[in-house]
Structure formats: C-alpha cells, structure tokens
C-alpha cells in the first residue's frame, strides 16, 4: 500500500515528464544517492561492514560504476538506436589512450615541416573528457557506414574498429610513450589540485562521473533526440518518412555513445587499472558490455546498471558459492561456468524477456502497486 501513485495528480506536463513521476520512486532514488555519496564513504571511513577492507570498493563498487557508465554508452547505441556494436572495447581503449596522451603531454613531430605540435600535460579531468571526445570522433567515423548498411553488416564494421584499434595501440609505440613493455601506467590523478588516491576518493570520483552522465543520458533519451533514436531503431524507413534524418540521428547516437564509452574507458584505465595493456580493451570487453546491455535491458538506463552488476557479480558468486558449499572448483572451471551461464542467460532472456532485468523490475513494481489486491 506504500507504493502507489493514487492521489498524485499531475498538475502540469512538466511534472508528467519528470524522470521519476511517482513520488515513492523519487524518494527511493534520492535515498540511494544519499547512501552512495554519504553512507558508503562513512562506512568506509569507520571500516564498517561490508567496507571493512578496501576490497569491496576496489574490486566491486569502482568497477561496477565504471562498467555501468560504459554500459549506458553501449545502450544508447544498441538499445536505443538499434545499431549493433561489437567494438565498444575499442572505444574504451581510444578514451583511455587519448586521455593518457593528453595527460602526459602530446608531441607530434612534424619533421617534414621542420616543426612539431606540442601540448603540455593537461589536467586529468580535461584529459578524460578529451578522451571521450576522441572516442566520439572515431565513433562518428565508424558510424558512417551505418548510413548505408544495417544491423548485421554493421556488426562487422564495428568489429573492424575493434581489431584495428587493438593493433594500433599494440604496435604504434607513440600511444604508449614508447614504453618498452607496451604497458602504460596512469599518471597521478589530481582533481583541481587535489590528489585523488585512496579508494574512497576514487570511488567518489567515479560516482560523480556516473551520476552526471546517467542524468545526461536519461535526459537525452526522453527528449527529441531520444525519440529519433528509437524511431530509427523501431522502423527506420518510417522514421525517415516522418522527417527524421537518419544521418543526424545515427551519427549523434554513435557520437554520444562513443563519448560515454570513451570516458568510461579512461576511468577504467586511470582509476580502476592504474596500469594497463591493450588486452584490457579486447573484443572480450566489447562482448561483455553487450551482454550487460542485453541482460540488464535494451533501451533502459536502469538496465545498464543492473546488467553491469550482474556481469560483475556472477564470477564472484560462482567462485564463492561452491567454496562455501565445500565443493572446490578451479579458476578455469569458474571462468567456463561464467561463459555458460552468461550465454545461456542471454538466450533465455532473448526468448522470454527481451527487455531484460529492467523489465522484470518494472513488472515487480507494477505488482507492488496493486498489492495487496492482485488485479
């Protein structure tokens, strides 16, 4: 009886168009945000369960936030605009390596002109956003084929991006500042002069990014451009006949999506990994992101979070539960099990509930709204 919209008359279109038109949802989200911004840091500060050690922050919350952000980006392209992408990993890499270059100073020797382009190291926040920008630009380039080709053909175009950039960051030493091992380490992270170092600071930084971008994404998908994306996804020909320009709609989806994915890539490299190799952004990462979106819910911002949480927790769960039951399993078996469970779940959801966990969640809420009257 607590969760109900009865008595909440919407007095204006503005109120009707709010992100969370139902008051209980609003309260819930605010509570969640307060907990994330204040509660978790407090728990960590006083070393209370489950934040007694860094593990929970470092190994679960931080990657969860960053992957959620990446999944939001992928969801904009795949879930909202219907353009399949198997190359998100590459766009994370572009974000990461561009941010690395901007953060450590860009030098492009132009010997044949007898000059060089030199940019001094930029502040980290700027570098990360520029990383997103570079990813967006490349995203637009690889999105251009989507104007002539559809669906599955596009999958191959995005694979081209994936494999090409894997190679670029492995072979073109300029991107790694000629590090002999090919692996690079992120420079120290200053946030307006303040060194972001401890896990809780890193966590808060990610949280700020994710909150802002989730809000932006939500605003976009519920506005004019979001409707254009979905129109292209659902019936591209009709959309064009309604005056929606496929060029603009698709390329903005590629740009916005790649931007967010690029920023997530930079955060992944700088905040989560610290030091990384091109392998961190391989096709496995792309497929993982795609899975998050399918499992969480195509065309749902909330689903991006749910999917990221699931994909992240599954291996931990499959590792811990048999241990707890006294059945020892090897690391390999766990990773194979993860493959099987994820793959099977994808198939199952596509058959039974193509809108993923997000839809299950809204069905549950619907039930709750009627509770205790089951009709």
């Amino acid at each position, binding site marked *: 009886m607590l969760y109900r919209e009865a008595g909440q008359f919407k007095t204006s279109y503005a109120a009707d168009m709010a992100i969370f038109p139902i008051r209980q949802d609003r309260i819930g989200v605010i509570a969640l945000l307060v907990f994330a911004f204040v509660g978790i840091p407090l728990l960590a500060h006083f070393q209370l369960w489950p934040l007694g050690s860094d593990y929970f922050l470092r190994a679960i919350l931080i990657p969860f936030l960053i992957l959620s952000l990446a999944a939001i980006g992928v969801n904009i392209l795949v879930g909202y605009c219907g353009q399949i992408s198997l190359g998100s990993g590459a766009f994370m890499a572009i974000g990461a390596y561009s941010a690395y270059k901007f953060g450590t100073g860009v030098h492009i020797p132009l010997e044949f002109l007898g000059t060089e382009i030199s940019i001094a190291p930029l502040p980290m926040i700027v570098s990360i956003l520029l990383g997103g920008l570079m990813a967006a630009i490349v995203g637009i380039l690889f999105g251009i084929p989507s104007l002539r080709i559809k669906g599955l053909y596009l999958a191959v175009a995005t694979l081209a991006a994936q494999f090409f950039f894997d190679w670029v960051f492995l072979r073109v030493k300029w991107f790694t500042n000629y590090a002999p091992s090919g692996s690079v380490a992120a420079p120290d992270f200053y946030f307006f002069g303040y060194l972001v170092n401890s896990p809780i600071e890193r966590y808060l930084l990610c949280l700020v990014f994710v909150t802002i971008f989730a809000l932006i994404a939500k605003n976009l998908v519920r506005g004019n451009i979001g409707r254009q994306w979905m129109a292209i996804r659902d019936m591209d020909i009709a959309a064009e006949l309604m005056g929606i320009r496929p060029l603009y709609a698709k390329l903005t989806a590629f740009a916005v999506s790649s931007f967010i994915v690029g920023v997530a890539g930079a955060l992944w490299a700088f905040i989560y990994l610290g030091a990384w190799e091109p392998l961190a952004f391989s096709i496995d990462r792309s497929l993982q992101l795609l899975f998050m979106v399918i499992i969480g819910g195509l065309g749902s911002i909330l689903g991006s979070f749910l999917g990221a949480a699931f994909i992240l927790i599954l291996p931990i769960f499959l590792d811990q539960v048999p241990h707890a039951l006294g059945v020892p399993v090897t690391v390999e078996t766990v990773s194979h099990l993860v*493959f099987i469970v994820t*793959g099977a779940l994808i198939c199952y959801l596509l058959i039974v509930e193509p809108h993923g966990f997000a839809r299950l969640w809204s069905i549950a809420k619907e039930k709750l709204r009627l509770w205790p009257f089951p009709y």
Partner: protein
Amino acid sequence: MVVFGQFLEVLIGGLLAGVLYSLVALGFVLIFKASGVFNFAQGAMVLLAGLALVRSLDFMVARGIPTWAAIVLGLLFAAVVMAITAAIIQRFVLGPLVNQDGLSLFMATIGITFVIEGAGQMIFGSDVYPLSLFPTDAWFILDGIFEGGLLVSKIDVWGGVIAGALVAVLAIFFQRTKTGRALRAVADDHAAAESVGIPITWIWFVVWLVAGLVALTAATVWGTKLGVQFSIVFLALKALPVLIIGGFTSVPGAIVGGLIVGAGEKIAEVYLGQHIGGGIEYWFAYVLALAVLLVRPQGLFGERIIERI
C-alpha cells in the same frame, strides 16, 4: 624474377589459406540462407569440433587403438557432437526465437557462442592440443623457373583439396538429394516451403548440422596447422568479413570472398606490414570489408534489395 617469384609464393599461400575462410563462410551462408540467422557461433563450432576430434583421438590412441581407426572413430564422434549441438540449438534457442528480428537472433548466437566455448572447454579441456592429420612440411615447385623454387606448404594444399571436395559434396547434396532440394526451397521462401509441407524445424536442424560438419572439416585443417586451441575462434570469425565481401546470400560469393581475403591479407602483410609495424593480418580482412561496404553494401555477389513499406 625473384621479386615476382616471391609475390607468387605469397599469393599461392594466401589463396590456399583463404580456402579455409571460404569454408567457414560457407557454413554461415548455409545457415543464413535457410533460416535468416547470422551465426556468430560458427567460430565456436569450429573450436568445439576440433576439441571433440583431438581429445577423442588422443584418448583412443593412448589406449592402443590403431591410428587409422582412431581417426575414423574420432571424426565420427566429433560429427555426433556437432549433431547434438545442432539439435540443442534448434530445439532450445532458435525454435523459440522463430519470427524474431535478425538482431535478436544474432545476439542469441552470441549467447550460443559463449555456451559452446564454455561447455566445450569444460568438457574437453582448454589447452593447446596438437593434431596431426596431414603433413605439415612444404614442397618446392617450379624451381626450373624460379631460383630455389616456390615454397608451398602441404597442409595448405590439403586444405584446398578438402575444401574443394566439400564444396563438391555440398553441391551434390543440394542438387540431388531430397533434403537438399527442400533446403533450397526453404531458403527461397520460408512460408511457401512450409505451406507445401516441408518440415521447417527438421530443415533447420539439418542446416545447423551441415554447418557443424563444415566446421569440423575446417577444424581438421586448422587444428593440424596451429593445434586445436581457443584462438581458432577468432580465426574463424574472419568468415564475417569474407561474407561482407562476397555477399551474404551467395555461395560463390563466400568462396571468392575467402580467396580475396586470404590472398589480400597475406600480400598486405608482406608488402605493407613491414612499413607500418607488422601484424596487420589481424585486422586487414575487417578493414577491407569495411571498404567494400562503403562502395558496394550488398557485397560483390549479393543482390540488391529495394526495401518496401
């Protein structure tokens, strides 16, 4: 002459390697034509077939079964594994997903890929398993014309021969057998085929089975060349750009596309790779496909479809 000889050597090697891409691409085309499914799992199927073959082979040889018998039994065993896989996929995934849009089906095959990779490696192991069905040394040909002759590796030739034989068998299957003809009918028009009483589910099973056997064939050659290992999945993924280049619905397209990709990437590697850092085989096929897409979206052999509304 030396320069030309080297070029010829690269070209021949590339074409023969390309034959295998054609083979895997053929598996894609079969499934795509018959059921409209763009099968991402083709590469995983090659891995599964290879694992089933090499592991059963090792098992039998270790128990003293003569090699030739072990090979025959191993091939049979792998074929059965592929048949079971086809049946499971048809029954539990594609059956329920019938009439869904292409994108959902495609994503489902990515799911299938993961299940196959996970289950295959869990059951059969996840190391590199050497397979030696074919000789792996090389011939030198034409040494009358070119100094030192041209190096042609035997396994590549074997691959070419086997692929050719398989295409011939498939052609006969499609032209001469009842099932094959039914398959072609389904590919042309699902609804019409169903209305004249062709059992669609059976047909789809057969298609997946044939694709599985094609995967097994590719696995024998690649397994011998590289050992049966996980990275075969990515090798087989190159069938995707092959299809883009050749056109999704065209069998000759798959074959020509494979040859173009095989030869193109070898030539690019040798003549371009040394200037820009090497290893471009890794992406060359995909970027080539991208270029083709921009110029001719339907591929070289695909027919252009005018959309309706």
